[in-house]
């Protein structure tokens, strides 16, 4: 016979389990800049990404177990592509995607199987704003503005980021703020070559997603006065 466990205790155990998994990893920072939103992650791998294009104006970043958020990333791309195909490209929104993620994470959290050990960010650029959604392992969802930190030890990173963030920063300034914030959790500055930097730039063509090459990241971090431009960066999702 199964021992009785109260629902409160069960949810608490599951939350502790998921939180523990997520906090073991490194943080991902999202920060708004004058042309959109920038994601910065400490990621030693150059091919296993934490940040991804989902659709024209929608991007995704995640922390936690790679295989789990990779599954969610693929589901998201699939959902967006099907919606865009069946209706119109403009009908694919960050909000609908974030809701879909909240649903699947919420279901997995309450099902007998183990909950996902992930936390997600979904961002959408519009002509004059950035919509930023933060989705937790249990499916709870909140919209953020300006900047947000997920994964790892968030408090010191978040504090640093709040200090340095200013509305309307250019790309270089946003990247330097994010880099400094990520370094605050460490005892030294994070090596720029270990950074994965990508984001959404509303001034690009149909597909707003860009990824910055390492050389460009180093260059932007070096120039204190950087007049940042994402246009010279890598193509699309490559």
């Amino acid at each position, binding site marked *: 016979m199964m021992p009785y466990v109260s629902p409160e205790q069960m949810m608490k155990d599951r939350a502790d389990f998921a939180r523990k998994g997520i906090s073991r990893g490194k943080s991902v920072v999202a920060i708004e800049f004058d042309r959109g939103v920038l994601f910065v992650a400490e990621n030693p791998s150059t091919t296993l990404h934490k940040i991804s294009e*989902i659709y024209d104006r929608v991007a995704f970043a995640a922390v936690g177990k790679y295989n789990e958020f990779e599954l969610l990333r693929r589901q998201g791309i*699939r959902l967006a*592509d099907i919606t865009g195909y069946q209706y119109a490209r403009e009908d694919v929104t960050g909000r609908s995607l974030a809701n879909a993620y909240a649903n699947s994470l919420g279901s997995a959290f309450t099902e007998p199987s183990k909950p996902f050990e992930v936390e997600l960010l979904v961002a959408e650029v519009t002509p004059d704003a950035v919509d930023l959604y933060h989705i937790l392992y249990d499916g709870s969802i909140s919209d953020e503005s300006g900047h947000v930190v997920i994964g790892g030890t968030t408090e010191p990173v978040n504090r640093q980021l709040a200090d340095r963030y200013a509305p309307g920063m250019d790309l270089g300034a946003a990247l330097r703020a994010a880099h400094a914030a990520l370094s605050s959790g460490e005892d030294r500055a994070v090596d720029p070559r270990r950074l994965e930097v990508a984001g959404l730039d509303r001034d690009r063509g149909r597909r707003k997603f860009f990824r910055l090459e390492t050389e460009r990241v180093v260059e932007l971090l070096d120039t204190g006065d950087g007049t940042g431009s994402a246009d010279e960066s890598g193509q*699309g*999702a490559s």
Partner: protein
Amino acid sequence: MLERSAPDAHPRLDSLPEHVDGTTVLALTFGRDDERGVIVAGDRRATAGNVISKRDVRKVFQADEWSAVAISGAAGPAMELAKIFATELEHYEKVEGSPLSLEGKANKLAQMVRNNLPMAMQGLVVVPMFAGFDHGRTTGRIYEFDPTGGRYEERHFASTGSGGRDARGSLKARYREDLSRETAIDIAIEALWDAADEDIATGGPDVVRQIYPLVTVVDSDGYRELEDDTVAERVDAVINQRRRS
């Protein structure tokens, strides 16, 4: 067989509603030193039987950043095919983090054409042409298809649709291996002119309505469509040249 023994079981061609047909599309590669790629162009006319149903249809579509798909045949399924194909390529690219090879894209399209075979048997034939820039070989490549999903690579030029044969004759006469991009564009426009000259279902340049052939370039800078003004200028040059001779 089915048609003979059970004529009612099989939808008959003449019982189909008249559908909109697209006509001449063509592609040719150009290549000189570091200037290599492919031109894909199409006329703008759609017909339903002997009626001109549209004067400004699009038969050339961007498949992705580095390739184009051009389609002749039943317009409805053709546009659908182009749309699904572009969605498939983008989906693969986003999921995998890198695009398919050009060969891979051509094979994907062949599969999709083959899946359309039942429709083709009922008269809704869609015959695409696929062309793109191959980064591995740094050159433009062209693929033709037949309704059963057969995939054939053409080294120099290709054309399909009702005016395809006339366009091919024109291309054959003017094509050289070391064409510059600009000359290749002129040759494409001339071939479309020749097709429109001989084939009633292919539309020539419509100077009254300012509708000109759709001409696209795919090279190391990716896919782009020529501006109407640019095409108009070149069309005028062709007209003047033909007028004198």
